């Protein structure tokens, strides 16, 4: 239980760090970010919208990790976001007719293939986070079959004195 809780905490902190960094680095380099989106075959026609919506969504996701009540939602959003990013990079590498520079803060130093591996890792991390959080939640509600601490007390037959 302690190990699970620790793992969930670490995953949450990693995602908060990732989304905060990703969101603010895009805002900080907004013009260049929007320009690079315009050079991507897949999103060139949505560059304006994505340039505004994506960093906003990343920061909101990071904030949703703070209250306990919205952490699982934030983990689902993280999984969804990483899945799309991973699929986008895979499509760029294998199906795109033009591959622009893979810019994005610290990930600026990563090539496209390294970026793909990084994204796959975080997608799986988000999935792991969801599984652990759901499992922990089931245990705390007493709905997990392996949890023995929340079973109703055993009715022992009364022995006549």
């Amino acid at each position: 239980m302690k190990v699970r809780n620790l793992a969930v905490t670490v995953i949450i902190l990693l995602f908060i760090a990732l989304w905060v960094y990703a969101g603010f680095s895009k805002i900080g380099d907004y013009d260049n970010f929007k320009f690079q989106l315009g050079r991507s075959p897949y999103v060139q026609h949505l560059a304006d919208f994505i340039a505004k919506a994506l960093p906003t969504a990343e920061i909101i996701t990071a904030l949703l990790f703070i209250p306990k009540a919205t952490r699982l939602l934030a983990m689902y959003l993280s999984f969804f976001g990483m899945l799309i990013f991973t699929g986008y990079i895979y499509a760029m590498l294998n199906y795109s007719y033009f591959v622009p520079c893979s810019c994005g803060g610290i990930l600026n130093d990563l090539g496209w293939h390294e970026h793909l591996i990084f994204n796959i890792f975080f997608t799986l991390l988000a999935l792991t986070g969801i599984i652990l959080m759901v499992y922990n939640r089931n245990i705390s509600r007493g709905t997990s079959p392996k949890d023995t601490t929340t079973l109703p007390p055993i009715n022992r037959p009364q022995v006549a004195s």
Partner: protein
Amino acid sequence: MRKHLTLLLVLIVVAVGILYALNKTNGAPNRVKNGFVRNFDGTTATLIKEADFGWHFREVCGQQGDSLFLMGTDPTKIFMTNTNLSKLDTFNLDIPPIKRLAPAFRCNVIFPYAYIVSSNAQRIIKADLITGKSEVRVLPFHGVFHNSVMLDSNRFVIRYIDTTTLNAKFKLMDGKGNILITEGNLSKPMQDAGFLYAGSLNYDKQSDKLVFATSYVNELTCFDTMMKLNYNTQTIDTTHTLKTEIVHTKRGVTFKKPPISINGHATIYNKTLYLRSKLMADNEHNNDFDKNIVIDRYKIEDGHYLGSFYLPSLKGKDVLQYYFIGSNRILGLSNDKIGVFNLTQP
């Protein structure tokens, strides 16, 4: 638990749907008819030998008889195989570490010497394949150039980018980097740092002519080794998709939008230019175009279109570079895959 599994599945399906929609609306070429037809005259290319040596080869840099010299992204290694692809030997060159030499360099082998030219590193290197020793020469001029083509051991043609005007010009350079001749009227003054009219430069020893096939515009320019224009003509492939645009930024010139490639790799053999086209003709089928690369043939003498044929892929991957290694024999490279094709002409 079932609720969460369902939610995960829904998210995966939605993500895939979004990516599918982005793919369908990405403005890729060949989704609509391009407005031209090809003449498939019965020429066929059949794969007769394939090999995977475990190395990533970028180009064939020379041939001597049955021996073929190949280059990867490491300038200190030159590989040698034969036309049967039955062996691979490695020559290790003793080149000192030079900043920015790799991976942007061109290599030519006239055995036993290899000549390596790099614009980023501003160097010409002559290396002895037998002893491994090298002579490194710093180019006496500053500036960026592309498409360096070797005419002989003492002459190179380069496409130089003037840093003041950002216009591209072809120049003839000697083995020490001295500029001998600058073109007069071959290139359009686009102030584009060479981007809009980037392309593939090839030299035909038989006719002593050079042919430049532009990548983003359907043009061919033929000129002689004195940088005099022979002719300008158009390739057969046309497209209705958006034209390539550039933009000047603080960091320099770059593409404003994803460029649409029209022409790819080219090679010359027997006074004929073999030019890969990335545009599908109206009389082609998607299946054929996707599973092969299409090569258009042009007469060097006047740029006249002769016909087209398909070059099959290597284990599902497009051939990226191809070279004639004998009469009716083509060597194809696709990253770490290498194949020999037999060309049959009617």
